[in-house]
């Protein structure tokens, strides 16, 4: 059946790879992203714009930190935490990092089981991911509370050094924490759809009224991995500097 409608396709060579494929795709006077759906392409482009936002935050933080004449608070000591004994430097941040990486791992596997149409495993893995994400936000709340109440850090100043420490810290981690929170909500929504079998029955979404499929899980995964990706840079530039 399809062969009759695609009579031209017998002439069409398979899409070349490498540099030639790149030039062909972009100059084809059609869609540039050949085997990527619009939803996935748009998620990538959204993530690119989000990269710019986070880059601007990190850049301005970097510049402020390098150009201040007042000493910058020691992040290793500020974020230390003691469990009864000696304070362990950055321990909470390290735990948060491992939690976020683990959530990325469970998300990647949820995408895989989604394409295998294993509804139960996909939904459970997504719920585990959401749980990891929620605990990450919880730890961030704990960290902020400790910083504000015990250390007296404010966006306009702090007792340990450069005044910009507070403003950049709250701005960057706050924006990241907001992304994680939205991600958790997004995860719960998609997990519910997987659980109900919306993607098997191709139920139309209430927002876009388009037929859903398991690619939504992958698109969701892209967003979640991006949140993890941003944390990699925040961890290196803010906490380890």
């Amino acid at each position, binding site marked *: 059946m399809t062969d009759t409608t695609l009579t031209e396709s017998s002439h069409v060579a398979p899409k070349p790879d*490498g540099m030639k494929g*790149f030039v062909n795709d972009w100059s084809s006077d059609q869609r540039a992203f050949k085997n990527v759906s619009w939803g996935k392409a748009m998620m990538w482009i959204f993530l690119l714009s989000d990269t710019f936002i986070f880059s601007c935050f990190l850049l301005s933080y970097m510049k402020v930190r390098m150009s201040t004449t007042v000493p910058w608070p020691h992040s290793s000591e500020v974020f230390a935490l003691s469990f009864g004994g000696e304070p362990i430097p950055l321990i909470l941040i390290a735990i948060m990092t491992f939690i976020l990486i683990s959530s990325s791992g469970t998300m990647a596997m949820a995408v*895989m089981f989604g394409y295998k149409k294993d509804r139960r495993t996909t939904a459970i893995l997504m719920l585990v991911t959401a749980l990891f994400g929620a605990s990450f936000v919880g730890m961030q709340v704990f960290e902020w509370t400790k910083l504000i109440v015990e250390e007296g850090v404010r966006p306009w100043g702090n007792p340990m050094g450069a005044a910009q420490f507070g403003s950049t810290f709250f701005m960057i981690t706050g924006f990241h924490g907001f992304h994680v929170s939205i991600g958790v909500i997004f995860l719960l929504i998609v997990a519910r759809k997987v659980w109900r079998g919306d993607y098997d029955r191709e139920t139309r979404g209430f927002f876009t009224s388009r037929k859903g499929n398991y690619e939504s899980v992958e698109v969701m995964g892209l967003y979640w991995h991006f949140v993890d990706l941003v944390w990699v840079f925040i*961890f290196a530039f803010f906490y380890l500097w």
Partner: protein
Amino acid sequence: MAQAGDTAHVEGQQHPIGIYFKVWGLLFVLSAGSYAVDYYHVESYLRWSLILLFMMLKAGFIVAYFMHMRWERLALIYAIILPPVLVLIFMGLMTFEADYTFFTRDLFFSMGK
């Protein structure tokens, strides 16, 4: 069949689960590495080259394997990866600017004394 390529697309990104476990483990090791750099007080240039190396490796593995960028076509890879590279140039410019600002501030404050 002419449809073969399209069917592969509908099936989506399918890779053996082992890859995810390996990358997951690797990310754990790299994170532990960058934490160890701080914990054992590695200083100066070694500290920064290690932190940046672990950072770039982690980011690379997440994008390449978890986000499946490795298996995408070059058209998408370049569209997404090239713009952040330009941001790196912006970053370099700001680093020079910061030194200059610091120098002016330092001069200004020392003249006030």
